């Protein structure tokens, strides 16, 4: 089914798919009118979309190494952009980002700048050159450029540490959504999520993941944008929110002035359920120091350029030229969602706090708010809470608490949208978490199967055997991730940000200097990776255990420290040892010229 002309037919195939999905949404909406229960709608949305992904995964099955590792290098720019966007935007982006903006305002928005700006580094410094190299994985580049198994193995270790930190959060998110939508306990839902994830990637490897990610992007972007536009129209804020919410932003500022940010006593706060927060920061004012903002943005940007699951998406394009353009499309598709998150946060906040709106709850009596249907639902789900701290009988700004996820999950209901939208949002969140988890698990499994097993342990292994090893590893790593996810150690966002810091500590400079500094050699790269990762990790442990840190580097930006150590170590050690061989230097020269055969032969 998926052969040569499949690529030419892509716009048609995904056009029909998008139409079909919209048709399905309409069908569900009709079902809701005819009395279909909320639970049935949720199950239909989750079940239907997972079925489609699994079908695509099965149709993309392959027995060829180049299909399994790099989707046969045939993915057109625009579609690779969509797949990258889905690969990139995790459960955290989808479910938690608007909430972060809602509660933390400006200081948090450094993440939006960082998670898009990083792609400028990807496009200029790395993607085209790594594509020209013709590697299958990121450690494959490190191993070939610097030579030797030690460098290769170190790259695999950094990749595994960073990606594994990230993937548990994603499996956790799939589990959370599956638990709610299918109404099963979280411990089982995690494994339901895992099986769905593996269905996409196991048979087709990168090829399967590519085509499911495109499908998942379409679902997640519809699921994010449709409610934003609908809510904006419903509360009369404007039909195109992105261009029309200036008055609403200003109004929130006015209300903040009027209500004031009253600080709650520790005793009062102790009565608030865990994980919920109140509004304590101005919505659109600058509430962070320049360095706090810039350092977080910088850490996320350098982390973006070092995360292997993103980089390997650009190995799938047909050419170097296409790899560059494809980065542009990726950021464009990411931009569509990221620029909508602040709008959703604005709409959600205004709907809740403006006394002039029918949905506003500030200033209403406690009893009245506690009687609202949606308040009861979300209170029960442990995502909303009001308490009369000052005993005056009405809800004040400082007496209303919400979970970060509620901004995305509850706002449609608050603004009076039909339940079908909540089902759609669940499907979107699931798509976001699944697509990222797939990319991450595949990145780890491919690195171990290609770089450790094939390149180090058994270089004579036949393709069939290599692919069996790759698939077994995929399942093993998936289960390991799910098992840790089921323990629920870190919040979704904490571990996501750490992954960026780990990746940049160990990989940023060895990758960048590998392309841009011919003098960089094996000893330098190994020193850079080892010392970068170790020092970054040590800094994290130090700050977590009460250390004061220095230069304002926090546990969210420890990669700035790690990568600086890595840079210094790499330059110093490289200069102290002999320069790379002529063959290696020629390899670097070749990688700088787009035309001609790839640098690594035989991995077309």
């Amino acid at each position: 089914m998926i052969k040569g002309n499949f690529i030419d037919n892509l716009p048609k195939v995904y056009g029909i798919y998008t139409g079909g999905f919209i048709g399905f949404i309409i069908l569900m909406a009709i079902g809701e009118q005819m009395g279909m229960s909320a639970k049935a709608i949720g199950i239909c949305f989750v079940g239907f979309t997972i079925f489609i992904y699994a079908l695509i995964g099965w149709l993309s099955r392959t027995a060829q190494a180049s299909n399994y590792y790099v989707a046969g290098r045939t993915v057109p720019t625009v579609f690779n952009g969509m797949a990258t966007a889905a690969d990139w935007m995790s459960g955290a982006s989808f479910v938690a980002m608007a909430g972060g903006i809602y509660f933390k305002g400006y200081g948090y928005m450094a993440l939006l700048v960082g998670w898009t700006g990083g792609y400028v580094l990807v496009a200029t410094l790395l993607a085209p050159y790594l594509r020209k190299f013709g590697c299958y994985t990121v450690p494959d580049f490190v191993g070939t450029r610097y030579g030797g198994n030690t460098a290769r193995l170190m790259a695999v270790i950094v990749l595994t540490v960073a990606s594994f930190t990230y993937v548990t959060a994603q499996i956790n998110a799939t589990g959370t959504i599956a638990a709610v939508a299918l109404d099963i306990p979280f411990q089982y839902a995690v494994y339901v999520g895992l099986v769905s994830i593996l269905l996409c990637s196991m048979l087709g490897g990168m090829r399967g993941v590519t085509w499911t990610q495109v499908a998942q992007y379409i679902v997640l972007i519809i699921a994010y944008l449709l409610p934003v536009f609908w809510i904006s129209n419903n509360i009369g804020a404007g039909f195109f929110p992105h261009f029309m919410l200036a008055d609403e932003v200003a109004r929130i500022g006015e209300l903040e002035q009027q209500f004031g940010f009253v600080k709650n006593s520790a005793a009062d706060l102790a009565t608030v359920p865990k994980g919920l927060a109140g509004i304590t920061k101005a919505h659109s004012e600058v509430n962070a120091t320049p360095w706090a903002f810039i350092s977080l943005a910088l850490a996320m940007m350098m982390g973006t350029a070092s995360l292997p699951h993103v980089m390997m998406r650009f190995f799938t394009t047909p050419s170097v030229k296409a790899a560059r353009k494809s980065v542009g499309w990726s950021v464009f598709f990411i931009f569509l969602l990221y620029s909508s998150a602040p709008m959703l946060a604005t709409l959600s906040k205004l709907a809740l706090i403006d006394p002039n709106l029918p949905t506003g709850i500030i200033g209403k009596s406690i009893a009245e708010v506690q009687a609202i249907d949606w308040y009861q639902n979300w209170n029960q789900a442990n995502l909303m809470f009001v308490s009369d701290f000052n005993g005056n009988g009405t809800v004040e700004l400082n007496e209303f608490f919400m979970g970060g996820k509620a901004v995305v999950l509850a706002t449609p209901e608050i603004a009076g949208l039909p339940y079908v939208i909540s089902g759609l949002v669940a499907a979107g969140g699931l798509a976001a978490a699944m697509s990222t988890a797939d990319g991450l698990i595949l990145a780890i499994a491919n690195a171990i199967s290609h770089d450790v097993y094939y390149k180090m342990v058994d270089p004579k292994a036949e393709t069939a055997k290599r692919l069996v090893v790759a698939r077994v590893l995929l399942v093993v790593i998936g289960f390991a991730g799910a098992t840790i996810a089921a323990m629920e150690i870190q919040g979704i966002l904490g571990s996501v940000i750490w992954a960026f810091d780990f990746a940049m500590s160990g990989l940023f400079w060895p990758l960048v200097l590998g392309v841009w500094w011919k003098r960089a050699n094996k000893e330098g790269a190994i020193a850079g990776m080892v010392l970068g990762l170790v020092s970054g990790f040590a800094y994290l442990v130090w700050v977590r255990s009460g250390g004061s840190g220095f230069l304002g580097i926090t546990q969210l930006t420890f990669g700035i420290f790690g990568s600086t150590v890595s840079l210094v170590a790499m330059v110093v050690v490289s200069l102290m040892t002999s320069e790379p061989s002529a063959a290696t230097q020629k390899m670097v020269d070749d990688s700088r010229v787009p035309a001609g055969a790839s640098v690594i032969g035989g991995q077309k």
Partner: protein
Amino acid sequence: MAKNAQHWEKTRGLLFVTLAIWAIFSMGIFLFGAEMNEVTGPFGYPLTYWFTCQGSLAIFVILIFWFAGRQEKIDEEFGFSEKGDD
């Protein structure tokens, strides 16, 4: 080899220009975040707020496409561009 060296020099020049623009809109302007926020930006949003929501993000999208176009021109000039597919 001289051709390669020239090509690389131009490529590096483009890199520096691109990274300079990137640094301004990802970090530089936020040095003056508080001051800039007093100004009204596009669509009536406070300026710094607008940059974090839309401005910087959109500039990155345009910047990458611009960079890709320029780099293709450089490659063509030296006859280094790939034939065929896109």
